[in-house]
């Protein structure tokens, strides 16, 4: 399939000179997402790294109109914006750009409210699994066992299963993606862009600083997360769950790459006990059991 990349590359939506760290996954995600989104979009950037990456006002490295906003307010602001564009007869898509903290924790009520109302917005959660902008503290999306600035001994709770929670809101479209697989990400964004109603995409964005790996390896870590089945690539559309080609092997435990390959490339799990690794494996097994039962139609959400 042709994405017409050559054509869209000529209209960069992420200008040079961002304030991102080298190897920043959010930069990668934004660049590819904007290619799939096209021009008629407005970004609502919820407090986080992306509030800083755009650079010092009044200049900006995002070649989109941007409303920067307080942590818990993104989906509601986007909902208001969608209604305003409707009243003005404009086909402009409000796109919320939020981290995992803004999504899983402080902004969750607002997210759930907009999903329940099926407001016509695209919500993108860039999930780097911690509050990276404030120094790498645990969030509701940090996985079991990961060391963060506020869980130096490793997190004791599992990652909040946001994609499934969003599916249970019965919105038209939910998907997961990874910066390791950009074509997949772009296709999903293209699809969501054209759906009327609330659409949600959660992109795994491995962070070289919080996860402690070499900045040249961002995409590789994003790939390993999928190959080891730590991070599923799925889509949920009109009540039906599909598994992206890259994740099909995860349905069978025996064809998954061992989790150690994903863990040993990063510093978050350095020196952790075998029990923690076992705990994380159990989480992954259970997650795939859930996905499988929805996929096979045994569980209807």
């Amino acid at each position, binding site marked *: 399939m042709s994405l017409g990349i050559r054509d869209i590359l000529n209209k960069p939506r992420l200008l040079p000179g961002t304030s991102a760290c080298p190897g920043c996954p959010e930069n990668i995600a934004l660049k590819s997402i904007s290619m799939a989104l096209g*021009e*008629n*979009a*407005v970004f*609502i950037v919820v407090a986080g790294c992306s*509030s*800083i990456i*755009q*650079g*010092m*006002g*009044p200049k*900006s490295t*995002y*070649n*989109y*109109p*941007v*409303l*920067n*906003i*307080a942590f*818990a*307010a*993104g*989906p*509601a*602001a*986007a*909902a*208001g*914006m969608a*209604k*305003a*564009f*409707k*009243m*003005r007869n*404009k086909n*402009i898509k*409000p796109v919320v750009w939020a981290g995992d903290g803004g999504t899983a924790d402080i902004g969750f*009520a*607002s997210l*759930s*409210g907009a999903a*329940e*109302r099926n*407001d016509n917005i695209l919500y993108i959660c860039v999930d780097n699994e911690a509050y990276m902008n404030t120094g790498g503290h645990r969030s509701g999306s940090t996985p079991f066992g990961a060391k963060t600035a506020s869980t130096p001994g490793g997190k004791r709770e599992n990652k909040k299963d946001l994609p499934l929670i969003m599916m249970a809101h019965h919105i038209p479209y939910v998907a997961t993606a990874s910066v390791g697989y950009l074509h997949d990400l772009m296709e999903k964004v293209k699809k969501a862009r054209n759906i009327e109603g609330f659409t949600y995409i959660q992109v795994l964005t491995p962070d070289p600083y919080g996860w402690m790996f070499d900045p040249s390896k961002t995409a590789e870590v994003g790939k390993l997360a999928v190959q080891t089945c730590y991070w599923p690539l799925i889509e949920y559309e009109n009540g039906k769950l599909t598994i992206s080609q890259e994740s099909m092997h995860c349905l069978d435990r025996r064809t998954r790459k061992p989790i150690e390959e994903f863990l040993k490339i990063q510093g978050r799990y350095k020196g952790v006990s075998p029990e923690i690794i076992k705990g994380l494996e159990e989480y992954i097994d259970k997650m795939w059991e859930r996905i499988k039962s929805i996929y096979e139609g045994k569980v209807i959400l």
Partner: protein
Amino acid sequence: MISKVISGNEAVALGVKLSRVKVIAIYPITPQTYIIEELAAMRDKGELDAEVIRVESEHSAMAAVYGAASAGVRVYTATASQGLLYMHEMIWWVAGSRIPIVMTVGTRAVGAPWNIWNEHTDFMSERDSGWIMAFASTPQEALDLTIQAFKISEDERVFLPMMVGMDGFILSHTKTRVYIPSQEEVDSFLPPRKQPYVLDPEDPVDIGNMFQPIDYMKFRHSMHLAMLNSKEVIKEIGKEYEKKVVPVGSYSSLNESYKLDDAEYALVSMGAWSLDAMQVVDELRNMGVKIGLYRIRYVRPWDEEDIKRKLGDKDGILVLDRSVSFGRGGHLYLELKATLPDVNIKGVVTGLGGVAINKDAISSLTKKFIEGKTDGEWFYPSEVEKVELRNPRYIK
């Protein structure tokens, strides 16, 4: 223009409708709920050409109207009490973006303990947020100020959001005769929306991104100047409103004076009880006391010059406050003290949490003050010994 007997809440809803608002965020909280119910009903009946968003919290209500306003349409929401406090973060965000927005606050006490009745502490706690803040004293004024608020807020010398306060229950639920302008009258007064920043891919601008300290401070200074500028704008727009829309009120000044010219003493008040205070002034005048009333209609901007002119020569001023800054006193009392440091000013904090303050109570407070039987600042009624806490205990 027609006249009808309606409540403050109904009057505000009509004002919003006549202002041709395009997006309204609604979330219920007593005592303003009737406004948003009324607007939702108007929308359902096809009388209101606006989108109504039923949000899940007040924080989201302010965020939703902020998003809609930044996308270029006229917006509205209403709240009270805990709801206003829950919105607090977004209230600052809106002002700091210089985005025109109008909101009603049906004032109410803030918990704990739970209390649904009227006081002004919720309203006054937003004093420093950069919003223009007007306070109505009648349902008529609530309607008039709401319509004017859109024009004031959207004036290019201002571009600050505006909230209109209204005493919970006392105005929100009480029906009086209100003159309701026609759509044509309001249209002749209120032009289509203008705003400095609009989010549109045609002209990509950013709102609210990181600013260098010096740019941030410049921006803050611009808000301060806009607030000062708004004084002239409010008077201008007020006069125009009297001429084109409802000729029954008087809006050529920010605040109102009653029998102040030859007065030796003055009462200062804000909101519905000002009408009771006017009766007290009449009563005391009949007894030979030279007293007048100064009614605060605008908390922000603060009309310093007018207050100095009208009250600077008085022998004594009594300020009635329905709000309190703990350990410091009533908000209006503190503002007055700062404006007139050399005048003999006393203040009373009263009517908190819906304590009924009628004409008689104001009359006896005023007499006590004139007889010189008062301290600088006191509570009325003051029965603090009845709310002793339990004996403290050590926790094992």
